[in-house]
């Protein structure tokens, strides 16, 4: 039985009288690919922010790779983000004035040690070995997203959190990125994917559906 990498118990987020996320219980095992789906307003975004430690829950527990994160200070959460989470965004946020290689090295820089060899390899792994010196503006959407993926992987995180990773890509690039995810899954990475695109979700091991902040399906 693979160990539990991520567990939430009664995870809740409240803003005044609004409760976007209400008492979520969830477990993710190592190597699983979980898709979180739901219509807009279902609490996907809030779920993502909490899972990625960009935000803290109002109630409940969130244990990630053995660390209870719910009660951490901002500084500590930054540390968790650095070490345990690889984030991939829909808008593939890259620092515009740094090259692809430097963008990946940035993640290393904040983490611990820079190793340009590792960074090069990571970029080769996603098929961009020949474009490491290019600026984001010189890369296509799909290439930019691939740089993000390389960056997300570089510090050997416990989980990979992706938010609509193909949302801004055309069909061809969507294919490429999807293939990459499949590859990561094969390598045994733990992937949590937030999407409303069932074509992506079909490749995951399990789908968690959210509706009005509650889990309505988990299989």
């Amino acid at each position: 039985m693979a160990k539990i990498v991520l567990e939430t118990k009664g995870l809740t987020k409240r803003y005044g009288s609004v409760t976007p996320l209400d008492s979520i219980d969830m477990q993710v095992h190592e190597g699983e690919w979980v898709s979180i789906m739901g219509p807009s307003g279902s609490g996907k975004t809030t779920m993502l922010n909490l899972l990625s430690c960009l935000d803290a829950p109002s109630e409940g527990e969130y244990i990630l790779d053995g660390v209870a994160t719910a009660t951490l200070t901002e500084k500590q959460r930054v540390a968790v983000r650095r070490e345990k989470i690889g984030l991939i965004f829909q808008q593939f946020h890259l620092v515009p004035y740094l090259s692809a290689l430097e963008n990946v090295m940035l993640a290393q820089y904040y983490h611990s040690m820079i190793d340009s060899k590792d960074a090069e390899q990571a970029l080769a792994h996603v098929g961009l070995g020949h474009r490491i010196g290019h600026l984001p503006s010189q890369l296509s959407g799909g290439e930019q997203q691939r740089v993000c993926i390389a960056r997300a992987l570089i510090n050997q995180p416990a989980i990979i959190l992706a938010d609509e990773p193909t949302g801004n890509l055309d069909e061809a690039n969507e294919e490429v990125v999807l293939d990459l995810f499949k590859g990561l899954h094969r390598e045994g990475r733990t992937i949590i994917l937030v999407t409303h695109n069932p074509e992506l979700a079909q490749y995951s091991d399990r789908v968690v559906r959210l509706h009005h902040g509650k889990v309505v399906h988990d299989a």
Partner: protein
Amino acid sequence: MAEDRRADTTQTAMFLRILFKSLKVRKNRVFITFFSIMIGASIITALASVYFDISAKMSRELRAYGANFFVGPSASRGERSVESDAIARAIAMVPTDKLAGASPYSYGVVRLDLGNAVLAGVDFRGLKKLSPYWQVEGKWITVDFDEDSCMIGKTLAKKMELKVGDPVNVMRSETGFQKALTVKGIAETGQAEDEQIFVNLALADRILGNNGRVNHAMLSIVTEGTDIDGLAARMQQEMPGMDAKPIRKLSYSEGKILDKIKGLMAIIAVIILTVTTLCVMTTLITVVSERTREIGLMKAIGADDREIVAQFLAETLIIGLAGVAAGLVAGFALAQVLGHAVFGSAIAFRMIVLPMTLVPSILASLLAAALPVRMAVGIVPAKVLKED
């Protein structure tokens, strides 16, 4: 270990790489920030240069008031005259760049066509520099061997019914001297000189029969940077039969006036610095708001607040230092413009201007960065990354 050390240098190298690339991409903003800081720094440099030099400049201007130093026979000895060599030696003891003007005086009573008058023998070239406030109709006597001309005070001229160019008989019975001198110029001072007649020292010596003795000498000495009291003491030491002393009434006022002017410069500099600091701050705030996404991203992938602050402060510091350096140069040039426009002379370079400009400018830049940096630190990644 060797590997760790390599890692360390790469960390710094990476930091610098991010730093410079970040500055390069934002050339416009960087330039504007640099420009604002440069302006602030150059104004401070210019004003500070003037501030530290103005005492010297105004001190020279205040020489327009004339004699501020007296050398004469020791009053206690009861003598009324002194050897002219002694006077010459005393005058020579004043550093040449500090001596604005000097003249010995030799007095006696003579008889003119229409009555008696006081005659004064002087060194005209020295006198003209000593007393620039003389209002002269006609011309000054310019050479010291002119034995045919005289200058007359305005009141005396009126009483004696003399105009410029008229001849006047000067007679002294004790020496049997009698000669007609030409009135070369008529002087007005509003004081005792108006009632006197002036000739060259050598001529006065002949007229009065003084045998090379004079009554006293008046000097105009620049006070800034001169130890006037020390000078007086040294003169007294060298020539024990003489009295050498500053004329207090002028030095009393000079200090007060200089303080006022300096105070004014200081206040202006502070205000201008505040204005440029605000300009820099506003620009930096704009920069931060343009980079919110970038900052949010960095925080999302694990950047500490400390790291964000370090990067921003480093960016500001680099621009600040460059701006200040440029400002120092520009400011000094500006000071020369000021100096020439107002005083007609160059402003001296003083070392103290460097720290006086550097410290406030750098502090101001950092202060200007304070609010924007706080804004940067307050950026919540979740919020900005979801925006379009």
